């Protein structure tokens, strides 16, 4: 049966060519020299896409995701952190700039930070045990109807397990050590809007539960199947709806199918000389529909905006019918914006199928930068001032000292861009950096984009402000390295898991005046909770300010600890995360800036948006989907 389904949809495959293409996008962050626009041949031809083939475009991720992606961890099979025979840390693969490099100080950092030891290793199950997988229960009538639509589907255990989860710690832990109680019964791969309409109709007809699946990068338990769901669960994988339908250069918009993933979208647009500029850290894997469904935020939002600023038009298929607007305009006053019911709906209302999104000409010039501050307080004050003067670069991030040290521990042995920052700093420290304590200082990384002259001007403005706050420019390399690490950091958790270290990140948004208090208190709370819960070794608890706004900032926390000696680490972990979230809320932070609520943070929704607010959302849900076809139980 699975074979039949596969046949129905051509597979993209993880060809080296696609890998290369993907790399080009990421390399923007990795390359030393700035990229100039106009070097790539521009072929703006919207009609081609529009009139193009009905089949999906060849994406970077194949339909059989397990072919190139880890089944029990983050990212590509070939990319991971390991300890080589010499006991040194190394990053494998060729996809990332760090690939193949040895990280001499990393082992020591891990041991020091977590009290972990290479001798104490856990091992994941080597592969999925198909016998453990809950059986697929799908009634024959539905299958018949489905086959009639010619839409590709699969009941294969691996396919189903792969779509039963996102990337929360507990989900990965389950993959490594156990099995989900409930997973989708069937995976379907629509290739266009009409396919989705058919599937939703069938689901209504047969009373099935649909869970939309985009890139599977959710970190809110949004993709997890409700255990008590008795109906057949259909995982609606949007990955084959991945074409750019048209590009409108006059209005600078593009209409794109919702399943396209970030790297493909940017790559394809760049072929026409455009970009969306939407770059969440998960952009290698997450999808346009996923961004809309979670209200995602990209690294470069200061120039391009968050998803809600980028979206011009959305088409969504619901059990009640199709919801969309009659025009594609920059703004309209027609009551509450229905887009705002859709954005952040987390798959409970329907499937986003097509999105018209703003595009921009590729930037002529990109420049990284970094600034060292004597302490975190000064750094935050500087970011606040930058925000106040509304001159934030495309990206500006401030990491605390612990994270700075961590970044430093990832320094490879040899590489031009990795010239030893700290060593240089130490020398510097004596001569120029007097008063900078390497155990207190913190670093801001910067990314400027635009035309060359303006970038240079802009750069000067920002550095001038930084100087006022005691900041010292610390070079382009450090900035670039910071952004490069963003993509590989996600791989680290898998390594940690091998050595009894579990960790996760979480985020919030907070008014400016509370940023420092919130950062300090949340970190301290984590440390306390660990102590109280019997964690044997002080945790790694660190934060960075990742986005600035007029009225506040987005703060991102990393938190990891060594769980040796703890019988139920996941439970302990979850309790601590919960305490940290309580702390965030008590400090005037939000429930989420961009990860969303999913099922993980549902318990705080009422507190967050009031009873009535929750009721408003409920009533929309009840109208749009009275039979709870989209029954993933997120949000409400």
């Amino acid at each position: 049966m699975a074979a039949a389904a596969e046949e129905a949809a051509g597979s993209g495959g993880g060809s080296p060519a696609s890998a290369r293409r993907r790399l080009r996008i990421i390399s923007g962050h990795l390359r030393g020299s700035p990229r100039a626009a106009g070097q790539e041949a521009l072929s703006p031809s919207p009609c081609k896409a529009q009139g193009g083939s009905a089949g999906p475009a060849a994406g970077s991720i194949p339909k059989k995701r397990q072919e190139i992606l880890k089944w029990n961890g983050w990212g590509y099979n070939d990319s991971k952190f390991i300890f080589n025979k010499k006991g040194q840390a190394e990053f494998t693969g060729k996809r990332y700039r760090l690939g193949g490099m040895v990280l001499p100080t990393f082992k020591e950092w891990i041991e020091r930070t977590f009290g972990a030891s290479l001798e104490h290793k856990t091992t994941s199950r080597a592969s999925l045990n198909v016998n453990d997988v809950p059986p697929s229960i799908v009634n024959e009538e539905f299958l018949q109807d489905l086959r009639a639509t010619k839409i590709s589907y699969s009941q294969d255990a691996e396919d189903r397990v792969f779509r039963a989860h996102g990337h929360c710690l507990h989900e990965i832990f389950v993959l490594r050590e156990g099995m989900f109680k409930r997973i989708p019964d069937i995976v379907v791969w629509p290739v266009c809007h009409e396919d989705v309409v058919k599937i939703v109709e069938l689901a209504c007809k047969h009373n099935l539960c649909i869970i939309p699946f985009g890139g599977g990068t959710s970190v809110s338990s949004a993709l997890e199947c409700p255990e008590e769901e008795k109906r057949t669960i259909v995982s609606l994988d949007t990955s084959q709806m991945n074409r750019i339908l048209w590009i409108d250069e006059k209005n600078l918009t593009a209409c794109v199918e919702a399943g396209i993933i970030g790297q493909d979208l940017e790559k394809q647009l760049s072929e026409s000389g455009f970009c969306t500029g939407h770059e969440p850290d998960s952009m290698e894997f997450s999808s346009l529909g996923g961004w809309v469904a979670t209200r995602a935020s990209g690294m470069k939002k200061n120039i391009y905006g968050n998803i809600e600023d980028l979206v011009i038009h959305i088409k969504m298929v619901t059990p009640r019918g199709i919801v969309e607007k009659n025009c594609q305009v920059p703004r309209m006053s027609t009551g509450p914006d229905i887009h705002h019911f859709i954005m952040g709906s987390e798959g409970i209302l329907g499937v986003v199928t097509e999105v018209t999104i703003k595009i921009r000409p590729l930037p002529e010039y990109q420049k990284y930068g970094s600034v060292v501050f004597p302490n975190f307080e000064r750094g935050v004050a500087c970011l606040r001032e930058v925000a106040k003067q509304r001159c934030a670069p495309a990206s500006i991030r401030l990491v605390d000292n612990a994270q700075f040290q961590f970044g430093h521990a990832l320094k490879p042995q040899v590489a031009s861009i990795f010239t030893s920052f700290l060593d240089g700093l130490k020398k510097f420290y004596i001569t120029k950096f007097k008063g900078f304590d390497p155990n207190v200082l913190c670093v801001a990384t910067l990314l400027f984009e635009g035309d060359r002259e303006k970038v240079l001007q802009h750069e000067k403005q920002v550095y001038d402000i930084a100087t006022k706050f005691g900041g010292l420019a610390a070079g382009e390399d450090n900035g670039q390295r910071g952004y490069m690490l963003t993509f590989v950091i996600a791989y680290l958790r898998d390594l940690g898991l091998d050595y009894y270290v579990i960790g996760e990140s979480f985020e919030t948004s907070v008014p400016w005046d509370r940023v420092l208090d919130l950062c300090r208190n949340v970190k301290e709370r984590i440390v306390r909770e660990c102590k109280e819960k019997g964690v044997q070794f002080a945790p790694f608890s660190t934060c960075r300010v990742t986005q600035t706004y007029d009225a506040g900032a987005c703060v991102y926390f990393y938190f990891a600890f060594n769980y040796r000696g703890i019988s139920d680490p996941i439970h302990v972990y979850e309790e601590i995360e919960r305490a940290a979230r309580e702390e965030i809320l008590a400090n005037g932070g939000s429930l989420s800036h961009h990860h969303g609520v999913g099922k993980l943070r549902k318990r705080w929704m009422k507190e967050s948006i009031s009873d009535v607010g929750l009721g408003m959302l409920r009533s929309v849900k009840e109208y749009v989907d009275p039979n709870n076809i989209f029954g993933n139980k997120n949000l409400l």
Partner: protein
Amino acid sequence: MAPPTARGPRPPARPPQRAGQPGRGGVGPWAPQRGGRAAERGAARRGGARRAMAAAATTAAGRARRGTPMFSQKELTSKKRDEFEDILEERRLSSDLRYAMKCYTPVIYKGLSPCKPNAIKSVVLQSEQVQYVIKQLAKEMGESPDIIQEEAVEILDEMGHSMQLGTVRFFAFTLSKIFKQLFQRVCVNEEGMQRLQHAIQEHPVVLLPSHRSYVDFLMLSYLLYTYDLALPVIAAGIDFLGMKIVGELLRRAGAFFMRRSFGGNRLYWAVFAEYVKTMLRNGYAPIEFFLEGTRSRTAKTLTPKFGLLSIVMEPFFKREVFDTYLVPISISYERILEESLYAYELLGVPKPKESTSGLLKARRILSDNFGTIHIYVGQPVSLRTLASGRINLCPYNLVPRHLPQKPTEDIQEFVSDVAYKMELLQIENMVLSPWVLVAAVLLQNLPAMDFELLIEKTVWLKGLTQTFGGFIEWPDNLCAKKAVMSGLTLHSNIARLINGHVVLNDKGVEDGAVGEIVFKRALVILMCSTYRNQLLNVFVRPSLVALALQMTRSFRKEEVYSSFSFLRDVFSDEFIFFPGISLKDFEEGCFLLTKCDAIQTTQQEIYPTDKGSVVVSFLSAMFRPFVEGYQLIFRYLSKETKEAFTEKQFIPGVRNYVFQLLEKGTTQCYEALSSDMQKNALAALVQLGAVKKKKMSNGFSYSVNQEAIHKILDVFDARTPVQKPVAARL
């Protein structure tokens, strides 16, 4: 002269590690940033490792809201307390000058960025909080902000401390001299100091000592100096500034001054609150103030004031600090310096205005002996733990934090609960001397009592007190006779042994006018009761049950409880009860009475046992002065004919009334002459709704609801049962 460093301070040793408490750590994976230093010092201390720290374990975590209050029933007997160490001992052995000049490098808050007292003032002045109020007032009054700013500067100058090490050293020297003169010993629980040492490094600390004497004032500073801990800043009443030199000295020793009432003055409030909070947030110094607000003239804990407490709690509510430690500290005096002054004051002989010359006159007392002081530094209580799950912080999230914001009811209730909890913790660790027991026995056996019987009764009372959880400092090897004797010697101004009998020392009573006799007797009795009073908060729950049993004439539990809770309400300003847990208090009272075999309880009934009648009648006799006193005062009010009266009119009025009755011999209740009792009784009536209190331009005015007062009197006289819906849960 360079301060010699040879003779180090006496820093506390490192306490054993204990989970969930301040001061854990030192070694291993959880090594704190500055643990090393503290540990080193600890180890260097004379004598090396200390005996294991006793588990003074009442960090009773606040659970949910009312109903499961954060004050849980005490572990009454299993409670183990720290041992004491006399810090004067070393003072008697070595040079005070050297001690005053010792190398002082205190342990400080981990997040401290040190700054000078004047820098704090300018931070306060520039703060958004103060600037906001200045602008606001300028707008409202059409004044230029500069003028109001000037005013703020003046307020700050009047208020601010200017702590100087030199002055501290001066006090270290003079206080050593004075203390050695006045007191036999100054004892402190060193484990408490150790806990404090860790607490100070971890979070901002608020020191909450009991207040019985002026001596309290610099006592903690003296202690912290001795133990090489950061010196506190101390909230003092503005009246001190009346004494030019002393006021200025105190200021330099870390005192900051607070006007007695500034309810209406927004600028003052803003400046004051911000001043305190700035010091707290920065961890500049431990902040010390007296929850009771003023020295208790009766040695009974006064009901708490909430103003300062709510100020120091706010930075935590607003999450400007991670946590704040509240440290209850019990300072107990074997003999109170001001004992006779207090008695005069209570009888309406005006308190001499604080003046330097007055204090100098006090030099006379330097030749006297005031026994031992015990300072018990309680377990630091984490405000965060108390608040967890109780407080909705949303209101703080929705308003910028620098705006003045009236605390929600939630918060007010919480502040009040915390205040009471801290006072109860103070009470728990108050040290009771044998003399306190003697005084309690003696007052029930006036005018004279057989010495042997007194000893016997005292020993009996000692047992009872311990059963009730009282903390008696009675050396194991000290025989009862000696203990009683030494009490009598120390307090010979109150009682004396004459021909095998112990009598009150009211010399000169025999000859003189009746009025004079009554007055002198009252003086002695009030002084004596000051010592008995130290027992009352330990005894109040079982005693009110005992009284209720007598009042009720029935053994039905619910009726006894009704009477109990009536009494508890009436005496709510007289004794310290955790708000809103009448039933728990009742149960505790019953539990303690059962424990000493005084009563038996069944599902529905409570009755005294045969041998229990001794206990029951002793307990009710102990509180009889209050019952009778209140009745007298109520009766006086029931005869009040004026529409409205002020406290100034009420006090002399009721005093005269009681005085006449005493002269006539119709009553023996001398304690009803105490203005403290009179005020409490009036406050009780206000709370019970029998007296209306109205705010007037120049203070408060009161008017009596006759019907209500009569009803209350009837209940007291047991003419009518308590009419009150009873908790069906009983």
